[in-house]
């Protein structure tokens, strides 16, 4: 299990937000956040609208000034540095391409501000357009581009100055599903090739999981958990993270018996559930456990595994997967996910009685 504070701090980070806080009138957008960004990583700030992720991103860019706390970039205190003097560039959600300039002029804009000489500028622009596979569109104007092309121009423009840190504000939000998946892999590939540190903001947790090396889950202005995607998914720290990232069955109960390595929890409506972990809490304490739907298997339980019996209430067929809502007893509903491995395999019908089982390791005790 990871705690929010410990893995957010690194040695010699590329960027650091130290105890930053930002409030707008009565709303606190960012509430005492400390976050380090490591060189070369792909960090995603993940959360629902209003959780503060965009404000945090804008603090790194220089468009928001924290009310309290400091911002460090490349080791130097950048809190008072305006955005046009930071070695940081941003790719805007709306792309913000300058409509009165050609693609080439858009990409060259940042280079002109630096005073780069024309030959070098032209070479860099060509290099950037080549990187995003848009060579040949240099003379077009933004209104003549498709959504995907406009996005790449925005990307090329933000990379042209070889910034140390690239910020991406929901870069894939405007793309349709097919294009989005394709672009996800392209962005990951690009990041590795160019070696620039990426910080991305998104509300799409699948996107975050696919692309990032580290995810910071945010809620109500705070980072509630930070870690590698697998870590976040398999070891959620709280009910919030368990439900927000992927689906989860949250089982509430009381500790019946605790040993050095295992805990038995009495879950209402289910019976005893064994968990292969312990956090030192005594018997009788309230406890919640997360159980991912894909960890539950339909069928009679082999020895040593937790079991449950129930009735199928609803079936959701999604092609590759099927999702079952199984009613256990009077009060409990378990979500079960199965891969449809056999072609023509029989699906469970609503109303049929089923047996479910899962290994004790599958259950994750939640701290809150």
């Amino acid at each position: 299990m990871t705690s929010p504070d410990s893995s957010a701090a690194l040695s010699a980070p590329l960027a650091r937000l130290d105890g930053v806080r930002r409030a707008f009138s009565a709303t606190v957008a960012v509430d005492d956040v400390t976050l380090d960004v490591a060189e070369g990583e792909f960090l995603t700030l993940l959360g629902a609208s209003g959780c503060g992720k965009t404000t945090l991103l804008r603090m790194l860019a220089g468009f928001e000034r924290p009310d309290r706390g400091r911002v460090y970039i490349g080791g130097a205190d950048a809190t008072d540095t305006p955005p046009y003097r930071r070695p940081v560039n941003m790719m805007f959600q709306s792309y913000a391409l300058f409509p009165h300039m050609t693609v080439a002029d858009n990409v060259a804009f940042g280079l002109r501000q630096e005073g780069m000489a024309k030959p070098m500028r032209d070479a860099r622009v060509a290099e950037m357009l080549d990187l995003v596979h848009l060579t040949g569109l240099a003379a077009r104007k933004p209104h003549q581009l498709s959504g995907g092309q406009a996005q790449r121009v925005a990307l090329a423009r933000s990379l042209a100055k070889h910034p140390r840190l690239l910020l991406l504000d929901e870069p894939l939000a405007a793309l349709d599903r097919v294009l989005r998946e394709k672009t996800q892999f392209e962005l990951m590939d690009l990041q590795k090739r160019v070696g620039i540190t990426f910080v991305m903001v998104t509300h799409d947790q699948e996107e975050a999981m696919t692309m990032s090396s580290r995810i910071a889950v945010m809620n109500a202005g705070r980072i509630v958990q930070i870690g590698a995607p697998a870590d976040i998914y398999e070891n959620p720290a709280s009910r919030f993270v368990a439900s927000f990232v992927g689906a989860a069955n949250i089982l509430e109960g009381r500790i019946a018996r605790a040993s050095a390595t295992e805990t038995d929890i009495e879950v209402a409506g289910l019976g005893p559930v064994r968990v292969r972990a312990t956090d030192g809490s005594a018997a009788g304490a309230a406890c919640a456990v997360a159980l991912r739907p894909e960890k539950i298997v339909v069928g009679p339980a082999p020895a040593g595994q937790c079991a449950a019996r129930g009735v199928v209430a609803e079936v959701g067929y999604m092609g590759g997967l099927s999702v079952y809502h199984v009613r256990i007893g009077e009060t409990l509903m378990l979500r079960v996910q199965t891969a449809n491995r056999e072609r023509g395999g029989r699906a469970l019908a609503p109303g049929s009685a089923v047996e479910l089982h899962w290994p004790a390791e599958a259950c994750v005790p939640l701290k809150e």
Partner: protein
Amino acid sequence: MRVPAAKWLAIAPPYLWLLLFFGLPFLIVLKISFAEPAMSVPPYTPLFARQPDGSLTFAASANTYATLFGDGLYARAFLNSARIAALATLAALLIGYPMAYGIARARESWRPGLMLLVMLPFWTSFLIRVYAWIGILKPNGLINNALIALGYTGEPLPLLHNDFAVVLGIVYSYLPFMVLPVYAALARQDIRLLEAAADLGATPWVAFWRVTAPLSLAGVAAGCLLVFIPAVGEFVVPDLLGGADALMIGKVLWAEFFANRDWPMASAAAVLLVAALVAPMMALQRAEREDLGEAP
């Protein structure tokens, strides 16, 4: 996040200009309204005068205001101006709203052209267009000649040099000020709102009164204020098209200033006119800000 000091480079020039050439003049008007007319250059008594012994005397007189409030003439002029302006505003609304509606509902590619046609008269000489109405409205002008020739009337109708002509002239001059904001409000409306209304059983007539009209109210308000406020103090139209007894405050102010050389009286009339218009002007400013959706 804006550079704090540099923004004054943009704010200062217009701000200083307006303070100097708009704010300051009004303070002067206020000051002179408390003076008395005198046979001097300038033709009013100074507020502060240096006496031979070196002391400064202060002489303010509220004579002007006493006269304005006491003499029924000015009160009648104000009320008449407001009445005529209100009639003109109403007429402008009745003519201008359907025009704006027609343009807003026209084919998309026609709309800029149609708006241009509405604005084109505005770009030609206002004075000459008002003058044109004289030739149309006078006893042996276009309309009367046509009516007599067609046999609708034996005697020419009195269409000129009366309130009717003044209202007509004001409507004619200020019509674009009504059409523009109403059109802007209507053009912004989502046509799907009307489709939803129709789907729920509303006839076009009902849909208009229940959906379109209420949503265009902001534009209507702006248009009415943009016509009413300047119309109250209008001078040219009543002077050319109105009768000799047309009592409008614009004419009164002009006469006090040029004919009677009574600068203090004219100033006092101006002060009262502005005071009367402050409320509508603030309403217009608020409507404009809401319209733009900007920070107030």
